[in-house]
């Protein structure tokens, strides 16, 4: 069995628990293993980056170095922000031996630069044949707007496996699950998640724009692959509805949860009951019973 190093990052151990759950569920069905990086720390996200270049690098490189020490050659980072930070750190230390030395000193351990950083959607894409073979309950009739957000397909120096302006990886994935991938306008518009707490007014405006665009395209749900996007689009949805005096009622579902559903897994085991905007309509549309609350009943399709 192929086993990857796994960097969940802080969100997947907190507000994005269901992303973690559903990734693990879907990977098991694909015959892929995940092993957490030993004693990992926060990547520092944009806050470290905006304060100190060295701090941002040191936090990211410590994670990579921990993986290298354990012999992990590839780590999967599901959060688009972590993914971007880690991969950027790799690019920076690869280009500057002096910098690598200085950072190694700060983190108290060496890093040779031998750990590849990959996003979870990249892994799904690479295993698309296995993925197609694992589908037992196709998501027929479901219209999905795939939302990539700002950091999944950019910048070019980091993401070389998709198009920065019109990425298609998630669209291909949802198509292979039997759903309909929608062509829509806001695939890569930033949702302002980093202002969700500090400048909520801006975040709510951006969220409203994205939800409105998905609604216009006729989406049943939005597929995401970043915990920050999910939290922002889901948790700020009611505020965006109040602001724009409309209703969106658009469930924001992780791509891994959609994969799990198509693999016939229980909605609750995939954490579909953990979102603010419930996915009941989507499950009904898949001619399934509403999410079973309390009892562990498999979703019949």
């Amino acid at each position, binding site marked *: 069995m192929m086993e990857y190093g796994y960097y969940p990052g802080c969100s997947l151990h907190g507000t994005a628990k269901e992303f973690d759950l559903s990734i693990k569920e879907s990977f098991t069905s694909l015959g892929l293993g995940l092993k957490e990086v030993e004693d990992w720390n926060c990547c520092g996200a944009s806050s470290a980056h905006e*304060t100190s270049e060295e701090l941002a*690098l040191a936090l990211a490189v410590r994670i990579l170095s921990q993986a290298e020490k354990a012999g992990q050659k590839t780590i999967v980072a599901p959060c688009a922000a972590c993914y971007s930070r880690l991969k950027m750190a790799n690019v920076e230390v690869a280009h500057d031996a002096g910098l690598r030395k200085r950072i190694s000193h700060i983190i108290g351990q060496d890093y040779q630069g031998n750990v590849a950083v990959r996003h979870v959607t990249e892994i799904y894409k690479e295993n698309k044949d296995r993925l197609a073979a694992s589908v037992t309950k196709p998501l027929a009739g479901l219209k999905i707007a795939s939302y990539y957000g700002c950091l999944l397909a950019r910048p070019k120096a980091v993401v070389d496996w998709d198009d920065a302006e019109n990425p298609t990886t998630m669209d291909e994935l949802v198509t292979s699950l039997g759903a309909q991938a929608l062509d829509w306008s806001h695939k890569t518009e930033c949702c302002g998640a980093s*202002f969700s*707490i500090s400048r909520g007014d801006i975040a709510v405006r951006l969220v409203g724009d994205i939800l409105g665009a998905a609604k216009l395209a006729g989406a049943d749900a939005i597929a995401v692959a970043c915990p920050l996007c999910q939290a922002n689009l889901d948790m700020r949805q009611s505020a965006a509805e109040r602001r724009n005096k409309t209703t969106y009622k658009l469930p924001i579902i992780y791509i891994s949860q959609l994969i799990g559903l198509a693999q016939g897994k229980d909605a609750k085991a995939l954490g579909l009951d953990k979102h603010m905007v419930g996915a009941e309509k989507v499950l009904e549309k898949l001619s399934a019973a509403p999410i079973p609350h309390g009892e562990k009943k498999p979703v019949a399709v």
Partner: protein
Amino acid sequence: MLQLNAETVHTCRDTIKRLSGEDVSRCFQCGKCTAGCPVAIDMDVTPNQVMRLAQINGRERVLASSTIWLCLSCETCSTRCPADIDIAKVMDTLRKISVAEGYPSPEPAITGFHRLFLASVEKYGRLNELELSIKHNLAIMKPTKDIRLAVGLFSKGKINPFGGKVKDRERVKKIFAESQRFVKVYPESIEREAE
């Protein structure tokens, strides 16, 4: 009014170039960066104006602007710039210079959030989401902000009240203590000449 001075006109441009490798003099004011920026309407100086000001040493306006703090680092501008300038990186560099020179932040909620975020990481090695939002709401004197959301998250088991912790916390403390703001040297004296 910005007075152009032949001796100092390129000071800001040169500093940015030294610290980020980006050359703002390549900008020819096409406006694409501003057109695609999701927060351009919230900024006091638009991204293309930042580029122009940086070219002609309008450093005060740029370093005191809300723009550098409102920039989400979404990279839309950098992806589209026909002159191949990594504008997001320039914004990033300007933020650091602004902090180094002690400019007050016109966006205290944002700068305060970053501070609290890092304080949490420094303490635990990982982010404690709950503690961060509580402290932030206290700092902006709206302790009950998002309280309904928090209750909802709790009931869905999405908040881990204790948060995760790194075992090797000594190392994390060391990383914070030893890291410097700029990787490259930042000779403040050169900057001061411009005044």
